[in-house]
């Protein structure tokens, strides 16, 4: 047998694959690690290149400054509110759309499927949508963040296919024989049995709302801005004022130092919640995509 083997042995190949994957992993993880270390360091040491591996002059000043900033704090509160309400809204929409469309014998099923599918490929675009949001009185209301998104069609298809393929037919039939209505079967059988896909959809929605700022930029006033939009002033605009600050010394230098520290710590504060959440449902990602890939 061994004499037939050409190329590298399995053991050598394993080592090569592990090395490749480890290098890729380091490339992906290092920028995040670098910012994390920098957030606990003196910013001047960061810019002097003293914090490649470990913090220098360990400090929590950046974090205390972030949580003392009223704008960032209100952004945080707004983001939590939008994420919670938006996720509940989106997931309910997904479920109440996917369940009827998963019933193969529902008259008009094809019409409704196409009705939703079209919106995946074609839309009104920025301004026509903006005008409708304005006409329906949603400007400066948090519902402007949720309603124009409508049903997330690609996710809805994944959920629909999951209902069709991964929930045992016999259980649904048994419940219908017992005299349960379609709605009751949905609540008592289908929803409890769809927990894996529910978890994935909750995380997808959470991430989308937590990270969204463009919709808020268009529709909401500054007091209602979510965290990423508030951070625009810190992360994107500060570089413009940095050059002016260099010419002023003393108290301004201290302020400048704090501005830099806030940059690092606000990145961590904004990114951490989602980075903590997703590993819990990671094992369902592939399954969810697979259920969605199978045609129903």
């Amino acid at each position, binding site marked *: 047998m061994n004499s037939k*083997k*050409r190329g*590298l042995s399995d053991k050598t190949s394993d080592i090569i694959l*592990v090395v490749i994957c480890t290098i890729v*992993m380091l490339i992906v993880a290092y920028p995040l690690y670098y910012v994390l270390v920098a957030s606990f360091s003196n910013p001047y040491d960061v810019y002097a*290149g003293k914090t490649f591996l470990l913090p220098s002059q360990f400090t929590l000043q950046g974090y205390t400054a972030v949580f003392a900033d009223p704008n960032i704090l209100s952004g945080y509160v707004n983001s939590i509110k939008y994420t919670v309400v938006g996720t509940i809204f989106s997931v309910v929409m997904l479920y109440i759309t996917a369940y009827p469309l998963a019933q193969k014998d529902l008259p008009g099923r094809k019409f409704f499927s196409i009705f939703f599918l079209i919106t995946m490929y074609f839309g009104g675009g920025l301004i026509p949508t903006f005008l409708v949001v304005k006409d329906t009185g949603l400007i400066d209301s948090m519902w402007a963040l949720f309603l124009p998104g409508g049903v997330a069609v690609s996710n809805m298809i994944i959920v629909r296919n999951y209902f069709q393929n991964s929930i045992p037919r016999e259980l649904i039939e048994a419940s219908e024989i017992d005299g349960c209505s379609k709605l009751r079967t949905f609540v008592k059988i289908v929803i409890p049995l769809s927990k894996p896909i529910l978890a994935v959809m909750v995380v997808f929605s959470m991430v989308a709302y937590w990270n969204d700022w463009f919709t808020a930029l268009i529709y909401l006033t500054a007091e209602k801005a979510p965290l990423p939009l508030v951070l625009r002033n810190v992360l994107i605009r500060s570089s413009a004022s940095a050059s002016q600050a260099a010419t002023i010394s003393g108290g301004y230098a201290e302020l400048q130092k704090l501005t830099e520290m806030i940059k690092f710590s606000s990145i961590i504060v904004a990114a951490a919640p989602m980075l903590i959440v997703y590993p819990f449902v990671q094992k369902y990602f592939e399954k969810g995509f697979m259920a969605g890939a199978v045609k129903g």
Partner: protein
Amino acid sequence: MDNWQLYLLLLIPVIITVIYKYIPMYGIQIAFRDFKATRGYAGSEFVGLEWFERFFSAPTFGRMMKNTVLLSLYSLLWSFPIPIVLSLCINQLRFHRYKRVVQTVLYAPHFISTMVICGMIRIFLSPSGGLINLLLGSQVDFLTQSNAFRTIYIASGIWQDAGWGCIIYLATLSNIDTTLYEAAKVDGASVFQRIMNVDVPALLPMAILMFIMSAGSLMNVGFEKVWLLQTDLNKATSDVIAVYVYQQGIENAKYSYSTAVGLFNTAINLILLFIVNKISSKASDVDFI
């Protein structure tokens, strides 16, 4: 029959979709009209292709077209193959705990907001002590250099989404019948040969599908990242149609003009999608639309 309950469930999604998806489609007609809010969509004066002509003769039209197409074309060519190669490697990892860790780490950047990503890019590229300049021992302000913009955009895009792009391929690979691997092993195939002869053929249809989908959105350069990384000095390469649509529509309130530009963009996208789909359905049995 209790189908009425099912229709009742559908009622709210249908109403919301009609209002926020279908009425805006009806509103696209303002691209051919001089829209005045007081007169409504159909009541505003019909101007034909005036807005399109104005766009085509705008001084930056050529630049925006070129930048939009090149940015997404280069983006597609660079970022498309990487998840495929990565997932082929990850799929062959035999230590399952390690495999999980690799996946967790590679997915991480996908869960971070573009705002935060662009903040990180700006920090790393800072001319005074940014990570990249520290490593290169230089003091270059990359974001003011128009010839660096595409590289920054594409490299950061790969960093953020190449790992996440693996999921669909890993799901496909996990569907492969394990007896194929065993047969290949019996035949004395090395790991590399197993990848080339079992994994690659299994991935091909999905890869073609993904390619069609990306090619169809070639003109869909994401607004967010370009807008956040744009500076006055890199506009020669960072000026794209999506940003123009936003500036004209939202900042300058030129509703009809902005809608016309957006519609032009969408039209090209749809044409591209049909062309690529035609080509690929001839080349294989994958038919997307």
